[in-house]
C-alpha cells in the first residue's frame, strides 16, 4: 500500500519532467477485446483506452474511428456495436496511427429475442426512476399505482402493471395507448413529470414488452447473478481529458451474459465532481473524488473517480512525514493539488491531544510542563502517557458506550455501570478489538454479572439487534433491507434475515440472556427459513451450537471487509471530527472513502498488530497529519476531507462542560486524583498482603466469638409516602438513595424520617395508599460477621439494601420468604423499600434466630484449600470490615475513583440541559449521528447566561478570589487555552481587574469572557 503511494508520487514527478511528450498515446486498448452478439437485440459498448507514456490512461471511446470489415455483419454507432446479420468480422479501431482489431461474431439473428420482464423491463423501470422510493416504489405507491422499490418483487409489479386498475396501464394491441408509456412521456398529465423520451433505451424495452403481450417470463428464464463494470475499481481523469465511457455486463445463471450499459442505472456520490449520462458516459467536473454507482436489478457496483484540475500557482511544499499516515495523506493531497498545513505549535498540540485522548483539558501545570519540556520526543511521549491514563480509558469507553445504548433506562439496577466498566476495562487493558467484539456478540448469562450480556438487553427485537450489530461492527445501515433490498448497497432482504437468523435463538428475559436450541427466522416474503449468516465460515458449528459464534468468527476474520476498516475509521473520526468514510456507520460502495489507500493501510495495520486499537490511535496521533495547524491558505482552504489541515472542532458537550469545570476550578484535577488513588490502593493492598500472616489467629478468635455471637437491632425509622406515576414507576424510582451509612436527619423529596419505636418484630407493619412507596430503616448490630435469615412477608414490592448494597428485590405478588442477610461486625444499615399497587399494604419482618447461622463459622472451620474462591473472598471481606482503618481507606479510594462529576468520565449520560444543548446523546440509538453536531441557539444561550456556566463561575471565583490579578490571569489563560496570555491580552485583562471597584465581579466577567471565546469553545 505504502509502496503504491510512493509509486504514484514517482509517476507524478516523472510526468512533470517529461513535459508535453508524455501526452502521446503509447498503446491503445479496446474493451472487450472480442465482441460476441448472440441475439437480435444484443449490443456491445466498446471502451477504448489510451495508455500514455507516463502510465496515465485516457478514454478515447468517442475519439476513435471504428470501421467494420464486413458491414453485413455488424455496425458501430457512437462506440456501440450493433448486429446486422449472422457472421464473423473484425472491427478496426483506429486512433492516430494506431489500430486495434476486434474480432466480432454475430449469431442468432433469425431467432426471436423477446424482452425479459425480470431482467429488462424491471431494469428499464428502475432506470427511469418509476420504482424509486419517492415515486411508485414507496410502500403505498403513488396515485394508486404501486411498484416494488427498485424492482425487488416482480410478482407484485406484474400485477400492478398489467392487471391492477382494470388493466388500464398497458394496451397490448396498441402499445402507444398504454398509460404506462403516456404518463412518463407526459402525453397526459403525470404528477411525477417527464420521465421517459422516445429516444431512451428504456422506452424501446417498455414498448416492446407491451407489444409482445406484457407477459411474465417463462419459468425457465435465466436470472441475473452478477454484474461486471469496466473500468474498475478506480480511474483518474485529468483536465482537459475529463470523459470516461463505462461498460456494464450482466451475467446470467445459464452462463450467458449481456451488455446492459444502456439499461443500468447510474448515480454519483458528488455531482460537483463527476456526473454520468444515462448512456454511461462519465464527465469530470471540479477536482475531487466521487463514486459513480452502477445499479442493475439488485446488483450495485461503484467506480471511484478522481478528477484532477489545474490549480494556478500551486507548487508542492514538503512537510515532514512521520509515518505511513502522512505518506498516504500527502500522496492524495499532492494528486489533487492541496498543500498540507505546517505542524501546529506546542500549546495547540497539548490542548488538542489532551482533549482527544482524555476528553479533558490539560491543567495549567500540565500545559506549562509540556511547553518547558525540551525533549524532541515530547509529543510522542505525551501521547504514550495519555493512552495509559484512566481518563483515556473512560473517555473512549464513553464513545463506545454511546453506540451500545448504555443508559440506565434500558439497563437498570446498576447494569449500565457494569457494562460501561467492562468497556472501560477493555480500553484500560487495551484488549484486542476482535476479542472485544467476540465477547460481546457471544455473551450470555445473568447480565447483573456477565457485563457484556447487557448488549442483548437494550433491544426489543431480533431485527433491532440485527441492525444495531451491523451498524456498530460492520458500519452498515442495513435497516432498509428489512422490507426490501437496500436501495444503495448490495445488502438484500435475504442478507438481512440471514443475519437476523443468527440472533433468532437469543432469549432475553429481564437480565437473563440465554441461547436456546430452537428458533428460526423466516423470510417475510417467501416464508423460507433463513440460514444464519456466517454459517459457511464456521461449518463445524452444528445445529445445536450458538449461531452467534459462526457470525462472530465471520466478523472478526482477517478477510472480513468491514470489521477492521470500520474500527480504524471510527478512531480516525474521533481524532479528526470526520471519518475517512463519513458518516462512520454508512459504509457502502456508493459512499466512498476520501482516501481508500489510507483506510486500507490503517485496517491492515490494525490486523497485523492483533487488533490493537491503542496502536492505531498512537500511530495517527504521532503523524504530522494529526499535528497539522488549523490555519489554512489559498491552497487548502476548501479542502474538508483530505486532512490538509486540522479542522476546527467544537468541543463535545462533555468536553465543554469539563473544560468549564477546569477553567473555573470547580472540577478537581482528574490525573492528580488518579495518582492519589493509585497510591492509596498500593497502601491498601500492602495491608491485605499481610492478612495471611495473621489468618490463623483471626480465625481462632472468630470461632471463639462465634459461640457468643449476638445480633442487636435499633428501632425503626420510616419515611414516605412517595409516589411517581403508576406502580411500576413508583417501584423503580429511587426516592431515597441507598447509602452504606444511612443518615436519618436528611430530608428526601420534602419528607423527613420518622422514628417508629412501636413497631415490633414478628408483627405486621401497616402502611396506606396505592401506587405509593415507603422506606424503612434500622441498624443491625452484629457482635461478629454473621449471616442471618430474615423471614419477610409482604404484599407487592419489596427491595432491600444492606450497607447500601442491593441484596433483594421482589416486584409484585404476595411474598413469604426467608432472605439471607450477610452482616459485618458492628453496625449494619438495613434499608427496605415497600411499594404497594393497591389493596393491603404491609410488611411482616422477623429474624427469629439472632445467633446467626452456622454458615460463616463453617467456612472458617474448613481449611483454606477446602474453601471456594467466593468463600475466601467473603472471609477477606469480613476481615476488612472489621478493620475501620481499611474501611476508611477503601472509601477514600472509591471517592477518588468516582468520576461522576466529570461529564467525560461518567458511565452514562447525565442529560442536563447544558449537555443536551450541546448534543449529548441519550444513547437510544447505535448511530453515531445521535450525537447532534449542529450549532443551535440554545448553545449560545447556555454559554452566555446558562445556569451551568453561571454557577461554575460563581463557585470558581469564590475559591480563586485570593489570587493576585496577574496570577489569576495567567492561570486562567493556561487553563483555558493551554498558553500564557499574550502581552496585549495580559495588559487589557489586568487593567480591567485593577480598575474595577468590585474585584470579584471583575474576575467573574473575565472568566465569563474567556469561556465565551471561540478559542475556548473550539478544539484547534
Amino acid at each position: 500500500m505504502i509502496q503504491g503511494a510512493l509509486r504514484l508520487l514517482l509517476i507524478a514527478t516523472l510526468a512533470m519532467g517529461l513535459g508535453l511528450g508524455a501526452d502521446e498515446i503509447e498503446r491503445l486498448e479496446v474493451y472487450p477485446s472480442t465482441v460476441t452478439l448472440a441475439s437480435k437485440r444484443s449490443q456491445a459498448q466498446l471502451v477504448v483506452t489510451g495508455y500514455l507514456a507516463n502510465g496515465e490512461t485516457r478514454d478515447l471511446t468517442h475519439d476513435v474511428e471504428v470501421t467494420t470489415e464486413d458491414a453485413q455483419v455488424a455496425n458501430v454507432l457512437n462506440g456501440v456495436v450493433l448486429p446486422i446479420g449472422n457472421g464473423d468480422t473484425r472491427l478496426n479501431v483506429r486512433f492516430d496511427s494506431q489500430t486495434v482489431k476486434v474480432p466480432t461474431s454475430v449469431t442468432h439473428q433469425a431467432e426471436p429475442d423477446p424482452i425479459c420482464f425480470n431482467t429488462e423491463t424491471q431494469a428499464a423501470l428502475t432506470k427511469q426512476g418509476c420504482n424509486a422510493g419517492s415515486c411508485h416504489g414507496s410502500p403505498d405507491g403513488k396515485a394508486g399505482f404501486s411498484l416494488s422499490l427498485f424492482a425487488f418483487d416482480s410478482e407484485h409489479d406484474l400485477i400492478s402493471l398489467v392487471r391492477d386498475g382494470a388493466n388500464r396501464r398497458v394496451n397490448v394491441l396498441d402499445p402507444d395507448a398504454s398509460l404506462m408509456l403516456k404518463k412518463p412521456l407526459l402525453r397526459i398529465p403525470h404528477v411525477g413529470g417527464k420521465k421517459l423520451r422516445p429516444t431512451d433505451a428504456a422506452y424501446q424495452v417498455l414498448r416492446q414488452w407491451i407489444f409482445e403481450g406484457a407477459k411474465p417470463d417463462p419459468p425457465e428464464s435465466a436470472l441475473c447473478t452478477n454484474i461486471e463494470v469496466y473500468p474498475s475499481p478506480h480511474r483518474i481523469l485529468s483536465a482537459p481529458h475529463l470523459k470516461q465511457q463505462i461498460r456494464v455486463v450482466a451475467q446470467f445463471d445459464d452462463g450467458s451474459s449481456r451488455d446492459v450499459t444502456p439499461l443500468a442505472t447510474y448515480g454519483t456520490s458528488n455531482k460537483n465532481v463527476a456526473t454520468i449520462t444515462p448512456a454511461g458516459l462519465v464527465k469530470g467536473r471540479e477536482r475531487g473524488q466521487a463514486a459513480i454507482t452502477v445499479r442493475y436489478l439488485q446488483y450495485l457496483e461503484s467506480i471511484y473517480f478522481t478528477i484532477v484540475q489545474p490549480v494556478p500557482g500551486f507548487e508542492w511544499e514538503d512537510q515532514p512525514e512521520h509515518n505511513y499516515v502522512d505518506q498516504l495523506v500527502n500522496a492524495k493531497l499532492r494528486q489533487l493539488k492541496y498543500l498540507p498545513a505546517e505542524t501546529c505549535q506546542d500549546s495547540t498540540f497539548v490542548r488538542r491531544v489532551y482533549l482527544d485522548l482524555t476528553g479533558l483539558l490539560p491543567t495549567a501545570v500540565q500545559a506549562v510542563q509540556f511547553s518547558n519540556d525540551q525533549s524532541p520526543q515530547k509529543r510522542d511521549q505525551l501521547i504514550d502517557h495519555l493512552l495509559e491514563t484512566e481518563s483515556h480509558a473512560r473517555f473512549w469507553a464513553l464513545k463506545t458506550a454511546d453506540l451500545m445504548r448504555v443508559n440506565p433506562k434500558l439497563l437498570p439496577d446498576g447494569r449500565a455501570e457494569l457494562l460501561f466498566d467492562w468497556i472501560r476495562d477493555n480500553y484500560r487493558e487495551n484488549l484486542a478489538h476482535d476479542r472485544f467484539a467476540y465477547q460481546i456478540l457471544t455473551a450470555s448469562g445473568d447480565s447483573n454479572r456477565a457485563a457484556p450480556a447487557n448488549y442483548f438487553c437494550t433491544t426489543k427485537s431480533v431485527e433491532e439487534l440485527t441492525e444495531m450489530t451491523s451498524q456498530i461492527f460492520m458500519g452498515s445501515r442495513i435497516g432498509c433491507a428489512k422490507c426490501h433490498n437496500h436501495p444503495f448497497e448490495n445488502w438484500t432482504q435475504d442478507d438481512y434475515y440471514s443475519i437476523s437468523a443468527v440472533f433468532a435463538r437469543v432469549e432475553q428475559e429481564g437480565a437473563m440472556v440465554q441461547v436456546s436450541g430452537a428458533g428460526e427466522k423466516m423470510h417475510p416474503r417467501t416464508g423460507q427459513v433463513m440460514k444464519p449468516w456466517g454459517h459457511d465460515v464456521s461449518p463445524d458449528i452444528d445445529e445445536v451450537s450458538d449461531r452467534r459464534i459462526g457470525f462472530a468468527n465471520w466478523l472478526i476474520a482477517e478477510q472480513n471487509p468491514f470489521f477492521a476498516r470500520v474500527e480504524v475509521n471510527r478512531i480516525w473520526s474521533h481524532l479528526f471530527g470526520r471519518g475517512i468514510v463519513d458518516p462512520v456507520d454508512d459504509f457502502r460502495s456508493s459512499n466512498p472513502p476520501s482516501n481508500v489507500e489510507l483506510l486500507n493501510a490503517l485496517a491492515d495495520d490494525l490486523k497485523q498488530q492483533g487488533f490493537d486499537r491503542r496502536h492505531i490511535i498512537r500511530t495517527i496521533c504521532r503523524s504530522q497529519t494529526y499535528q497539522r495547524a488549523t490555519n489554512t491558505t489559498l491552497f487548502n482552504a476548501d479542502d474538508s476531507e483530505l486532512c490538509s489541515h486540522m479542522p476546527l472542532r467544537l468541543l463535545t458537550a462533555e468536553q465543554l462542560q469539563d473544560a468549564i469545570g477546569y477553567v473555573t476550578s470547580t472540577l478537581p484535577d482528574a490525573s492528580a486524583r488518579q495518582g492519589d488513588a493509585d497510591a492509596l490502593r498500593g497502601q491498601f493492598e500492602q495491608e491485605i498482603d499481610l492478612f495471611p500472616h495473621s489468618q490463623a489467629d483471626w480465625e481462632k478468635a472468630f470461632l471463639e466469638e462465634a459461640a457468643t455471637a449476638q445480633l442487636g437491632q435499633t428501632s425503626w425509622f420510616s419515611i414516605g409516602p412517595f409516589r411517581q406515576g403508576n406502580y411500576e414507576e413508583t417501584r423503580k424510582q429511587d426516592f431515597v438513595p441507598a447509602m452504606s451509612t444511612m443518615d436519618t436527619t436528611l430530608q428526601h423529596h420534602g419528607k423527613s424520617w420518622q422514628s417508629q419505636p412501636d413497631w415490633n418484630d414478628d408483627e405486621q407493619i401497616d402502611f396506606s395508599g396505592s401506587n405509593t412507596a415507603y422506606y424503612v430503616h434500622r441498624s443491625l448490630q452484629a457482635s461478629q460477621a454473621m449471616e442471618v435469615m430474615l423471614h419477610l412477608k409482604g404484599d407487592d414490592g419489596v427491595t432491600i439494601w444492606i450497607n447500601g448494597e442491593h441484596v433483594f428485590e421482589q416486584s409484585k405478588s404476595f411474598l413469604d420468604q426467608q432472605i439471607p442477610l450477610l452482616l459485618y461486625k458492628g453496625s449494619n444499615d438495613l434499608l427496605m423499600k415497600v411499594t404497594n399497587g393497591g389493596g393491603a399494604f404491609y410488611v411482616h419482618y422477623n429474624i427469629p434466630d439472632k445467633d446467626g447461622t452456622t454458615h460463616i463459622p463453617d467456612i472458617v472451620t474448613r481449611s483454606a484449600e477446602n474453601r471456594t474462591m467466593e468463600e475466601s473472598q467473603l472471609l477477606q471481606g469480613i476481615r476488612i470490615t472489621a478493620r475501620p482503618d481499611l474501611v476508611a481507606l477503601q472509601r477514600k479510594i472509591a471517592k477518588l475513583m468516582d468520576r461522576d462529576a466529570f461529564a467525560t468520565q461518567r458511565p452514562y449520560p447525565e442529560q442536563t440541559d447544558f449537555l443536551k444543548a450541546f448534543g449529548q446523546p441519550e444513547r437510544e440509538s447505535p448511530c453515531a449521528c445521535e450525537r447532534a453536531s449542529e450549532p443551535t441557539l440554545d448553545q449560545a444561550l447556555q454559554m452566555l447566561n446558562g445556569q451551568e456556566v453561571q454557577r461554575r463561575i460563581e463557585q470558581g471565583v469564590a475559591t480563586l478570589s485570593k489570587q493576585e490579578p496577574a496570577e489569576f490571569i495567567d492561570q486562567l489563560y493556561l487553563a483555558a487555552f493551554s498558553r500564557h496570555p499574550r502581552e496585549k491580552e495580559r495588559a487589557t485583562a489586568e487593567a480591567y481587574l485593577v480598575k474595577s471597584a468590585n474585584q470579584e465581579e471583575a474576575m467573574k466577567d473575565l472568566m465569563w469572557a474567556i469561556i465565551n471565546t471561540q478559542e475556548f469553545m473550539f478544539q484547534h
Partner: protein
Amino acid sequence: MRSVTTSLLLLVLLGISPLRAEVSFMRDIAPVLQQRCTGCHGAKKAKGNYRLHTFEYLKEAIVSGEPEESDLYLLLVEEDAESRMPQDDDALSPTDTELIRQWIEGGATFDGENPSKSFASQAFPRTHPSPPAVYRVPVPIMAMAYSNDGVELAVAGHHEVTIWDPESGSLLRRLSGLPLRIQSMSWTPRGGQLVIGGGTAGEYGELALIDAMTGERLKVFDTFEDLVLGIGLDKQGKQLAAVSADRTGRAYDLESGKRLWTSNVHSDWATSVSFSPDNCFIISTSKDQTVKVLNATDGALFTTFNGHRRNFGDFPGRFKVFAGCFDPASGLAMSVGEGKAIRIWDPIKVKEENGTAGDMEQRFFKAGHTRYISHGFSGPTFALAVDADSVYTGGSDGLIRAFEFTSGKQRLEMSGHQDWIYTLTLSRATKRLATGAHDGEVRVWDTQDGTLIESFMAAPGYPVREDTSSD
C-alpha cells in the same frame, strides 16, 4: 350546445381539413393542451405560475387577436431550445401550432360550457378510429352483455363491441368506431341498442348509446375525465347511471339523454353501479373500500356500507370493492372485491346500524346484519351476477363459483379459465352464464349444471386456440 357538438362531429366525419377558417377551441386546441401542457401547467402543478387547464387561466397567456404578443404562442415557437415549450420534450406538431396561432388570431373564443372548469371535465366527444381488422393479440375482456333473448353476446373489444353467437362462438358482427376501451355495457330493455361506458385511461371517459346492428353512436350522454367503469339501467329502462374512474357518479334520462344529477361521494375510482329492484336506490362500489347507497331520484347520499373495511368481526380487513348488485327477489344488496367473501346487506339496515359518531365504540363490537358468503378465492374478485336463486362470482383464480343465495352453500364450481376473470353475464332466457378473462377467452356455461357450452377467443381474426375444455 348538443347541436353544436353534433354538427362539429359531422364536420369531422366529413373529413374537412384541419386548417380551416373556423377553429374550434374545444375540439382542436383543448385536447392538445391537455395532452402536452397540463402535466406541468395544470390543477396540481403550476410551473412558472402558468396553469392551462381552464379557459380562465389560459386567457392570461393570450392577447386576443395577437398571436405574436401571446405567451402561449410565443413559447411554442421560441427558438431557444431551453425555453421552448413543452420544455424538455418534442415540439408541438406544426399543424397544432398553426391551429393555435389561427385561433388566437381569430379572437381566441371559447366554445366550451364553462370557462372556469377544466377542459377535461367538459371535453367534446371524440371521434374514434376503427379497430384492427385482425387482432394480433387478444385483449382482456373487460365487459360483456347477453341480449335480452340470450341469442347474442356482446363483448367489449378494442375500439369496438363484437357480437357473437354464444352457443357456437361464431362472430356475428363488429360494431366499430367506439372508444378505445369499453369497461361496462348493457342492452336497453327494448333491445336493439346498447349503452356502453368506457374511454381512454387517464384522460377521457364516454357514455354512449349505440345501435346494436350498425354500431352507430346514437347519443353521447356525457364525457368524463377518466374511464367510465360501470353503468346501470333501472328496471323500467327509464334511467341510466354511470360511474367513473374520475370518481363521479352520474344519472341520465335514457330517452332524452338529459343528465339528472352528479354525485361526488367517492374518494377513489367508482367501479360499478346498480339499481335496486324497486328503483329507489343505486349502489356504487369503489376502490375507496366503501359502497355508497344513493337515492336514485336525486343522487343524494343515503348511507355508506363499510362492511369492506372492518377491524373487528368476521372477515376483517380493508378491501377495495369492485362489483355490486341487488338480489331481485329479496332486494338485498351484494358487494365483492378484495377479501374472501361476498357481503350481502340491506341498505336500510345499514343506515340504522351506522348510527352516530357517539355510539361508534359500541358498534364496533356488534356483528350487524351483514351476511358473508365465503367464496374462498385467493385474490381479488371483479364480477358478480345473480339470478333467481344463485349468486355467481369469479376473479383472479380463474374459477367461477355459484352459491345458493339463501343458504350460502356452494352450488357449482366452473373451472377451465387460464387467467383472471374480469366479467360475468347471465342470460335468464337461455340459462347461460358467460365469463370473460384477461387472456381474451370467453366461456359459456350452463347455469343448471355448470357444464361448458362453448369457449372462444373474442378477438376477430386471432388464431383459434386449441380446445382445452376437456382438461
